[in-house]
């Protein structure tokens, strides 16, 4: 379910590494299903510097608002204008058309700190078992 080539954060962001130290970033399926129908995205403009683990934007659904954290450090090269106009794409296709920003990585070794898809699958499975009260 969660693409094997992607890397994942504990805050449910993914990064799909591309050549030349670039990468596309988005929200994982678990995040979009927890949030519900997404209505608005506040994303950093091209040129913005982001730091691994620090807030870089916000995602709003009808009933919740959540911070989006940068999976790695770097600079924003472009943001996905289509998803800004159609936030529902994050729900429909979180790993494809629902991508959020493309980064230029300043420290590619930071990718090693992230979870691979197997680890992330387990992480999500454990979360779903927890009993909320």
């Amino acid at each position, binding site marked *: 379910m969660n693409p094997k080539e992607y890397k994942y954060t504990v805050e449910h962001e993914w990064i799909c590494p591309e050549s030349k130290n670039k990468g596309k970033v988005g929200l994982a399926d678990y995040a979009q299903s927890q949030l519900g*129908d997404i*209505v*608005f995205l506040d994303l950093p403009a091209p040129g913005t510097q982001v730091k691994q683990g620090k807030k870089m934007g916000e995602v*709003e659904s*009808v*009933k919740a608002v959540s911070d989006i954290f940068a999976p790695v450090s770097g600079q924003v090269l472009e943001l996905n204008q289509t998803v800004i106009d159609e*936030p*529902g794409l994050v729900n429909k296709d979180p790993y494809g058309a629902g991508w959020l920003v493309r980064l230029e990585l300043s420290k590619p070794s930071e990718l090693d700190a992230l979870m691979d898809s197997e680890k992330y699958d387990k992480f999500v499975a454990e979360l779903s078992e927890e009993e*909320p*009260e």
Partner: protein
Amino acid sequence: MSHHYLLPDISQPGKIGCSLPALDVPTTELPPGELLRQELELPEVSEVELIRYFTALSKLNYGVDTGFYPLGSCTMKYNPKWHEDIARLAGCASIHPLQPEESVQGALQLMFELQEYLAEITGMDLASLVPMAGAHGEFTGLLLAKAYHQDRGDKARKRILLTDSSHGTNPASVAMCGFEIGVVASDSEGNVDMKNLESVMNEQVAALTLTMPTTLGLFDPRILEISQLVHEKGGLLGADGANLNAFLGQVKFGELGYDYVQLNLHKTFSTPHGGGGPGSGPVCVKENLADFLPSPLVTKHNGTCKFLSPAKSIGRIANFHGNFGVMCKAYAYIRSLGAAGLKEVSENAVLNANYLKEKLKPYYHLPYDRTCMHEVVFSGRRQKAKGVHTVDIAKRLLDYGLHPPTVYFPLIVDEALMIEPTETESKQTLDSFIEAMKEIARDVEENPGILHTAPHNTPVKRLDDVRAARNPDLRWEMRSQGVG
């Protein structure tokens, strides 16, 4: 139904909805054209159409006068009808806030007495009537705590402690006062986790805000220990007094160790909710905070009432001195009840809530199976396991002509359903609510589809709030007509 149009749809140039007198003085030259407005586009309707329109709208609404309205934390009690008569008295409605004080002694006397009654009811020393809503009162309480510590020269107090079950206005108020937020956990009984409190309560904490009873509808039996702990570390204890209906006329916040508490006159003191307001959120304080109260306070000396600004007041938080129109009603309510009447309110409120708790607990999960106070919190998790959520239960209740309880609050309960019947409901009404909830529980097993598609019998069905948020349509527009 005739509500499917808006004012612009029935507007026609040349209509008007009231009559106005002609000018009775000579005209003066108007200012230069560039200062004047060229177009004014407002709807034009006759009085007949106006009244029909708003009458039709009103029929789409459900109020306490329509039926049971068990919103937890809101205390939707019945509003005695004499409230409206009193508020409309010329001596209440037609007085200007800045009139010479000698000319409004009746109003000032009412405010002075209300200050005293609220202080007496809460077991505090003074009350300020200025805050215009509960959230406004919360904001005020935190400003008082801030001023108190600053006055003591204590600059380290930068944090406010809140419980994990607190109402959203609590953290928002904290942020408005420039404080950090610390969270105190609840234990499995729904009380404050004392070990956790001990670990987070220190000399950097200005105050702990503790709603009592809590938003879970539970009275924390260790309140006296809690207040002692907070005070030992030099902090203040503040209450969100929204739930006062639970022990009105029986317990005083002051005797529980609280330093300040904000009240909601539109909840506990029966003033009408108005579709979302007006309210009034007076703050009652102990002597140690009196000097910091917002300006103005009403004082009385030698039989004459006057406005006064407390010596070290936090300043003004309103243009005038609070929602007097709401105060009149709360004042009359207290005068109609007396001490015994107040006690009767809380006794019946708590009885009604516990009755609902016992009758519903076979059907819905009760996370805290203990005596509740004026409200009870259920969880819809049994139903969630069958694919029916609390929102579906709420929408199905609408088909029975009942307003649902509060849903999805407090946040620490999964699929929360918070039910507050109040004392103004009869056992007969409660029984019909119980019957409806039983049928719904049965439908969860036998016919869940009907819950997912509910409501069916209301003026509109479930509304697309995703569309409303993605493409906000927040107003109509009327374009160019010249000014008359």
